[in-house]
């Protein structure tokens, strides 16, 4: 930790959050909001004189409320940066001088109430997302009575209690009577592996955390009676099984079965009832103290960051990697990498391994000092351009400039263009070519697909990042769906031009699905808003023309929603079956007439 504070190449911003990210791989501009600390962190020597005079006493977050701190405080003694801070919401304030005792006490004059939040912009070439985890809140699990009985603690509270630097200097005591407990029970899988409450996944660390806890307890208090209530003990890592066996040899009892209820008995001890599934009988155990082995949840703010960076999440809420085996630390977005629990629950060793991997992947990207960009960008044909400005309006990257007043044709800045193709889809004058996904290339695919027995087929447009990836995920998971589905890949659903849809129906497609990333998850900021608008518009036109609008569907399917992809395909198949040959023939006729009329105009 101190190495980070001292390293000449590391610029550390604490009390800071990312508020905006612009740009692309190699050149990101990141806006960081640095909250006011009210103490100058470079001048503060952490002498503590300010703390002595501060009259405000509050629960200490670092010790989970098991001890107290002042309104001016250091999070913990070894904190980096080693500087105090003021929680301004708790501080009595200085204007008019209500308190300001700390200002008087500080010889170095580092306390400054006029500090304000700052927004800083930093340019970087790559990003490592290491946002960590949040811990499961056991309040909803009323059967374990965390909120009702004081001697029921969480595993993190227990860690603070047994820690020599903790509120009790490492003395394990009961909160109610401050006496060392003679017996302790650990309940495993709190908030993990449950379809009912908490999460369905295994949190990876709680088994070994408990095993370690039992060993520490036995080291401090050899006579203590320890019982662990579990479903399975997952001691899968290197050396883990040894540790588990050692714990058993020291007399820790491992009992298979999670408590159904926790009751408080005389002297505020606790009685738990379990169904011991090894012995096949109901048991009750009386314990002085209970520890709930809490599971790991995605960090708060994951969703916000995901939207800002255009990343994807798994259904569990952790970040989704580009490939589960071959690119486990890469995000699907180039230049972004994952480290630690941001990607899924893991222990310290695995977090460190993954972090080094993420660093190596970032270096691999950056070491040349230059970056090759995909030439999948749009291009304007100046002769066709009427300078109407639509393309500039829809571009999520402000990559297109048009001078509407002076009728100067649009120009695309290819470095800023990310290649979603929304401009090409929205241009009414065919003045934009989307390279590698041109109108004729896509129309050729549509035509080839509908060449033979179109009535039997389901035409699906799928965006590369979410829906197409969701279809791949269905494949990897071997989830079966109707075989008459045919996907056409575009980079973004924003690329799906109205004319592709008309062409499809005109060539006899019974149903068409346009699919993309969920709103808010679009890989191209918000290009899929235009998809939504366009599909609505086309459906209205269909209605007017006498074509059932239901035959055109729009669905948002994420990269992790393989099951949903298959369900949507089933639904499309049901829809397709409802479309008769006569209806298709009628549609073809209507669209032919429409074409003729358009030509006459």
């Amino acid at each position, binding site marked *: *930790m101190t190495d*980070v504070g001292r*390293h000449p*190449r590391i610029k*550390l911003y604490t*009390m800071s*959050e*990312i508020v905006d990210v612009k740009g692309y791989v190699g050149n*990101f501009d*990141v806006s960081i909001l640095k909250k006011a600390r009210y103490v100058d962190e470079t001048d503060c020597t952490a002498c503590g004189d300010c703390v002595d005079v501060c009259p405000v006493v509050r629960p200490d977050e670092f010790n989970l409320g098991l001890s107290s701190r002042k309104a001016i405080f*250091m*999070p*913990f003694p070894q*904190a980096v940066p080693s500087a105090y801070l003021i929680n301004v919401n708790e501080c009595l304030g200085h204007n008019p001088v209500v308190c300001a005792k700390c200002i008087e006490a500080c010889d170095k004059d580092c306390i400054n109430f006029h500090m304000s939040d700052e927004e800083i912009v930093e340019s*970087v*070439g*790559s990003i*490592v997302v*290491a946002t*960590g985890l949040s811990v499961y809140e056991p309040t909803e699990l009323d059967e374990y009575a965390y909120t009702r009985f004081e001697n029921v603690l969480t595993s993190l509270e227990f860690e603070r209690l047994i820690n*020599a*630097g903790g509120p009790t200097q490492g003395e394990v005591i009961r909160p109610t009577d401050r006496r060392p407990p003679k017996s302790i029970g650990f309940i495993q899988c709190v908030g993990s592996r449950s379809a009912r409450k908490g999460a369905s996944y295994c949190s990876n660390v709680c088994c070994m955390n408990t095993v370690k806890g039992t060993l520490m307890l036995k080291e401090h208090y050899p006579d203590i009676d320890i019982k662990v209530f579990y479903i399975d003990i997952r001691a899968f890592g290197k*050396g883990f099984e040894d*540790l588990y066996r050692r714990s058993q040899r020291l007399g820790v009892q491992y009992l298979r079965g999670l408590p159904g209820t926790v009751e408080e008995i005389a002297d505020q001890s606790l009685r738990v009832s379990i169904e011991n599934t090894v012995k096949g009988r109901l048991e009750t155990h009386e314990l002085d103290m209970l520890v709930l082995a809490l599971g790991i949840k995605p960090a708060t703010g994951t969703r916000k960051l995901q939207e800002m960076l255009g990343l994807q999440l798994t259904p569990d809420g952790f970040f989704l990697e580009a490939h589960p085996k071959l690119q486990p630390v890469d995000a699907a977005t180039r230049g972004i990498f994952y*480290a*630690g629990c941001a990607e899924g629950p893991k222990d*310290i060793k695995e*977090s*460190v391994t*993954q*972090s080094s991997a993420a660093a*190596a992947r*970032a270096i691999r*990207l*950056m070491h*040349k*000092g*230059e*970056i*090759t*960009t995909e*030439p999948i960008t749009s291009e304007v044909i100046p002769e066709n351009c009427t300078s109407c400005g639509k393309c500039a309006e829809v571009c999520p990257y402000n990559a297109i400039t048009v001078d509407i007043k002076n009728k100067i044709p649009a120009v695309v800045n290819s*470095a800023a263009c990310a290649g979603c193709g929304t401009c090409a889809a929205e241009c009414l004058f065919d003045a934009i070519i989307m390279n*590698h996904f041109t109108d004729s*290339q896509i129309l*050729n*695919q549509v035509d*080839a*697909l509908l060449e033979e027995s179109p009535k039997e087929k389901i035409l699906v447009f799928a965006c*590369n990042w979410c829906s*197409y990836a969701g279809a*791949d995920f269905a*494949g990897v998971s*071997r*989830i079966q769906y109707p*075989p*008459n589905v*045919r996907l*056409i*890949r575009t980079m973004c659903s924003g690329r799906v031009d109205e004319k592709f849809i008309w062409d499809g129906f005109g060539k006899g497609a019974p149903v068409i699905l346009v699919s993309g990333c969920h709103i808010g998850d679009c890989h191209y900021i918000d290009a899929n808003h235009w998809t939504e608008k366009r599909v609505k518009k086309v459906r209205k036109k269909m209605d007017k023309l006498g074509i059932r609008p239901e035959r055109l569907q729009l669905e948002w399917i994420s990269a992790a929603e393989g099951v949903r992809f298959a369900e949507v395909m089933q639904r499309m198949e049901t829809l397709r079956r409802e479309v008769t040959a006569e209806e298709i023939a009628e549609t073809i006729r209507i669209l032919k007439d429409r074409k003729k009329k358009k030509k006459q105009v």
Partner: protein
Amino acid sequence: MKTNVVVKESESIEAQPRIGVYVCHCGLNIARIVDCEKVAELASYLDDVVVSKNITYACSEPGQQEIVDDITDQGLDRVVVASCSPRLHEPTFRQMLKKAGLNPYLLEMANLREQCSWVHMKEKDAATEKAIDLVKMAVSRARLLYPLIEEILPLTKRTLVIGGGIAGIQASLDLADNGYDVVLVEKRPSIGGTMAQLDKTFPTMDCSI
């Protein structure tokens, strides 16, 4: 070699396309369900298809070599690989085209594994039919592909690390020790994250800070 590339690229825009189709078995991943031989045979009748083959593993060294040889010997200027998802091996096959002196954007893939054989395991005939369609669609698109030139842009040799827990700390130190500048952003007043709150940690049982 370089001049050779340019000649081939300019040729490919004007002349009639010469497309090679490669239907990959992916061992049995595709071939168990899809009749790859039939797909390759039907693809050979499509316009502009000069070579159409099935191949055990297109991505393997001999598989790639076979395609590269065909590009040279048969003067192919477009390649359709019908195998796994382009999200997996598109970069592999683009590299292969480069090696053969073709512009990497003259490649098209048909997804016969993730989006065909793996999702229609009980409907072999329908899956084969779908595979034929997917290859047909890929060929029709490949016909209109044209070379694209990648742009080289400057890059900022600096990394943003979001989060100052053990993961963020380790990544920052590894990057910084390798000579890269790091911007480390932490929400809380101190770095350390959850690990700083823990007591002794396995297996060294030393202090976690």
